[in-house]
């Protein structure tokens, strides 16, 4: 058997074994020495899992610290794909009313051990049932997640906005967030999302291959979640609720703003909806109901829709005419109750006519004929220029989503729509009284009123007052931004503001008057193609050293002076009442006394020992 051939075979076997040994040894070297760190990382990734800890979203308060929104615990339901059985899927899908195929699809798209959120804000009854039957439901897990709780909700829906699960577009703009995270979807919740959101914490746990937690792991990367900042709004909750009760079932908006800094005290749009029903899991019934409501409660009338401003916009024409020296304030004009332009006759709102009026009188009585003529004198370019100068046709920059810029038609606009030279002078006359193509939002109107009250200084309307860090109570205030409207002569303001004062003092806006506090305003009754006129009122008070500007719009409400001015008046009284400058009782006594004695208010004041004020508003 021992031949040299056999020796050869032996060495051939040796050779093959040595070769195989080297190949295997080399691969071990490759894995364990060359790529060791790579695989070490992978093995850590395998067994150490990040547990996300959700931050508590900041609360929302009003300007005086009254709580509007805070958070309550809610539970979300998760399934772990590696453990979930068909039976679990069946039971859960029945329980939460989701098709089992949808659950399967979600489970497939996730990692084997990655819990998949199948439902947010599970009913406590359902959760209890799951907890009792957990033995038969392998793979089911629940985690606590804070949920918005609305302490007060009347009249706040449009302002607060809603929360919802992040969508793909938002994921692109917030790269630090993950699918399933909750973000603000509308209004304040969206604008201040980054401030209120807080940041997630991460803890690390060691898990086995089945995803079961074996132990806590402490690393340098362990991070506690940091809660979001509390947001203090400029809103005065008492006034907001009061405004809500004033508008009641009416459709419209009420905005009040501090003229000294642009802080919005009230921002109300009616009708609205129960915000708690739209934040969280939205039931399709409620959603359908809201979407199909003929009054469009989801629509924010304060800033989302443009309306014809009606007579309130005569102020722009007046300023333009005066500032461009087109007329003198003393220019008199006779109003016979109608105005003939070309072959058309347009009527003033007062059929008998206002007689002879100067500019102040025309503002006070809101004479259409006077302003038709003024419109023709000014011309479209100048009208557009002054409209734009007062920031019409552009967004105010308030911290709300979906703000409408309105529309200030220019020469270009008309030539585009009607063709070169095809538009008529009648259209221009119409613009001067705030009809026609011009569209404004109530928010723009209140901003305009504020600018007038400040004689050209515009504060950007804003809702954010301050942010408070819940951990160290550190505050960061939002700054008021202002611009000066350049190039308006002081005398121009004198005339226009005096006209506005007279509107309240015996003019169309008497019902907006507040006893003891002289104010200024302008009514508007805007014709529109949707039925009854829109009722406008804008105003500010006190006349000297203004504090507050207000805009009331009642959609299809009728006359501005008859519908909106009284609402403004009641609101202003309440405002000054809170300021300690107005007393309901005193006014009541005065009226009673005046009625009993058939005497003048001034006499009644004297008998009550009240210092005689400048205002004669109540006498009208």
């Amino acid at each position: 058997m021992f031949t040299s051939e056999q020796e050869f075979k032996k060495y051939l076997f040796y050779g093959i074994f040595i070769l195989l040994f080297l190949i295997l040894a080399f691969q071990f070297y490759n894995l364990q020495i060359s790529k060791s760190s790579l695989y070490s990382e992978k093995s850590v990734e395998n067994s150490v899992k990040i547990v996300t800890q959700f931050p508590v979203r900041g609360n929302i308060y009003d300007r005086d610290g009254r709580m509007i929104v805070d958070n309550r615990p809610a539970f979300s339901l998760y399934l772990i794909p590696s453990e979930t059985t068909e039976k679990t899927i069946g039971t859960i899908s029945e329980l939460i009313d989701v098709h089992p195929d949808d659950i399967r699809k979600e489970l497939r798209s996730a990692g084997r051990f990655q819990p998949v959120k199948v439902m947010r804000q599970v009913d406590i009854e359902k959760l209890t049932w799951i907890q009792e039957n957990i033995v038969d439901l392998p793979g089911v897990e629940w985690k606590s997640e804070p949920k918005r709780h609305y302490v007060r909700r009347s009249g706040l829906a449009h302002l607060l906005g809603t929360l919802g699960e992040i969508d793909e577009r938002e994921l692109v703009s917030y790269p630090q967030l993950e699918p399933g995270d909750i973000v603000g979807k509308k209004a304040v919740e969206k604008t201040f999302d980054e401030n209120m959101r807080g940041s997630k914490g991460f803890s690390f746990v060691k898990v086995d291959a089945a995803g079961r937690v074996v132990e806590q792991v402490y690393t340098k990367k362990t991070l506690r979640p940091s809660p979001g900042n509390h947001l203090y709004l400029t809103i005065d909750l008492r006034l907001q609720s009061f405004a809500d009760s004033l508008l009641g079932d009416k459709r419209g908006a009420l905005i009040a703003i501090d003229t000294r800094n642009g802080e919005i005290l009230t921002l109300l749009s009616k009708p609205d909806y129960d915000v708690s029903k739209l934040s969280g899991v939205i039931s399709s019934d409620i959603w359908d109901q809201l979407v199909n409501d003929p009054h469009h409660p989801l629509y924010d009338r304060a800033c989302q829709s443009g309306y014809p401003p009606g007579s309130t916009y005569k102020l722009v024409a007046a300023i333009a005419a005066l500032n461009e020296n087109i007329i003198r304030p003393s220019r008199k004009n006779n109003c016979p109750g109608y105005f003939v332009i070309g072959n058309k006759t347009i009527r003033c709102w007062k059929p008998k006519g206002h007689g002879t009026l100067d500019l102040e009188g025309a503002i006070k009585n809101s004479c259409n004929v006077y302003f038709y003529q003024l419109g023709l004198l000014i011309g479209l370019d100048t009208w557009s220029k002054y409209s734009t100068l007062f920031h019409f046709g552009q967004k105010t920059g308030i911290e709300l989503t979906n703000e409408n810029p309105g529309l200030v038609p220019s020469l270009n606009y008309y030539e585009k729509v009607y063709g070169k030279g095809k538009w008529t002078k009648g259209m221009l006359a119409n613009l001067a009284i705030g009809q026609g193509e011009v569209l404004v939002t109530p928010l723009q109107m209140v901003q305009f009123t504020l600018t007038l009250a400040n004689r050209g200084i515009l504060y950007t309307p804003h809702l954010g007052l301050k942010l408070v860090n819940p951990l160290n109570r550190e505050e960061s205030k939002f700054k008021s931004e202002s611009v000066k409207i350049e190039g308006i002569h002081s005398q121009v303001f004198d005339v226009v503001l005096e006209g506005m004062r007279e509107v309240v003092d015996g003019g169309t806006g008497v019902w907006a008057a507040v006893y003891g506090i002289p104010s200024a305003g302008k009514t508007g009754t805007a014709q529109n193609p949707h039925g009854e006129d829109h009722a406008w009122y804008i105003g500010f008070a006190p006349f000297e050293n203004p504090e507050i500007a207000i805009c009331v719009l009642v959609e299809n409400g009728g006359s501005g002076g008859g519908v909106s001015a009284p609402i403004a008046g009641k609101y202003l009284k309440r405002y000054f009442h809170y300021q300690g400058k107005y007393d309901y009782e005193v006014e009541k006594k005065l009226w009673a006394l005046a009625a009993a004695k058939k005497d003048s208010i001034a006499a009644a004041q004297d008998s009550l020992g009240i210092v005689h004020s400048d205002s004669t508003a109540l006498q009208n």
Partner: protein
Amino acid sequence: MFQYLKNIDFILLLAVVGLIFLGLMALYSSSHPSLDAGFGNNYFLKQVIWILIGFGLIIILYFLPNRWIYASAYYFYGLSLFFLLLVIFVGKMGQGAERWLQIGPVSFQPSEFAKFATILAVAKFLSRDEANPNHIPDFLIASIFVVVPFTMIIRQPDLGTSMVFLAISLPMFFWAGLKLSNLLLIAMPIFIILASFHFFTFLVLMLILVVYLVLSHRSKLILISNFLLNIVMGLLTPVLWNNLKPYQRNRIKIFLNPESDPRGAGYQIIQSKVAIGSGGGLGKGFMQGSQTQLRFLPEQHTDFIYAVVGEELGFLGALTGLTLFFVLLIRGVQIASMVKNKFNSIVAVGIVTVIAFHMIINIGMTIGLFPVTGLPLPFISYGGSAMVTNLVMIGILLNFYKNRYEY
């Protein structure tokens, strides 16, 4: 007494004992009772019992008269075929394949036993004085010894184990006198099979074959039959591929690209490589491997047990195991060379080959060089049938060593 000790091959024995200790460490670490309540079976204890039985058999085999082994070769072979037949009719299902036979409380895998029995039968047939594997009739009969269990096992189906039979036959034939040129000719279909999925490579290989055949001056019958065999093999393979069980096809596909299915079948290979790679030079320490202890490793007490060695004992441990295997294999070839008896010599080569094949395929699988086949690692993987069979084969080698001067 001293005489007895002198006749024991301590090199072989120590290599085997070393491997068994390495295996027991890995097995304990990967299946100790505290790991999980699910491991109701105490694998470690069971394995120890099998090892004790195996060593008992080694002692018996050591003292067995050498001729008895030769005499009983065909009976063993017949018995193993009988068991394989039994599996076909009354087999117990396991992982999508019938491989187990239950006898009383013990279930065992007849295919393990058949490996050894086939080695004995082929060796007995080829060790006859007049036998010459270069002659077609002898070659064919020897091949039939191999093909019969191969066919019975491949239909269990157990592709990995059935391949073992093909793998051990050629080295044994070669050792028994098959010329290298003929060996290559016979091995040609294997290359043709591998090439058959790629038409151009297939064509080139066939061309080389034709040139080789023409230059080799053989009888026309051989030339033509070999040529036809290769052509048929090449054309048939894609058809056979389509007839493979989906899980078998998947295993090969996943092997070629484990990342294609990281959560499914590729999971095993990836986790195994992560375990070994993260072990580094010195390992994470006994019972400290996170991949093993947290059960990320699949089949960590059987097929992928060497990944436990790699993770917990590191490159050093892996290399130690490899070296022990290397020593065992080289020693086996040395025994095959030193024994005077031709039957013993061929059997020794068969044993060496079968251990080598399992080792290469299994370790190659855990480090991502070969597809997942389910072949256990000799002396290391948990499993009674394999452990006992392997120890019996070692007992045979020790017997051969003791009787190395006998003709």
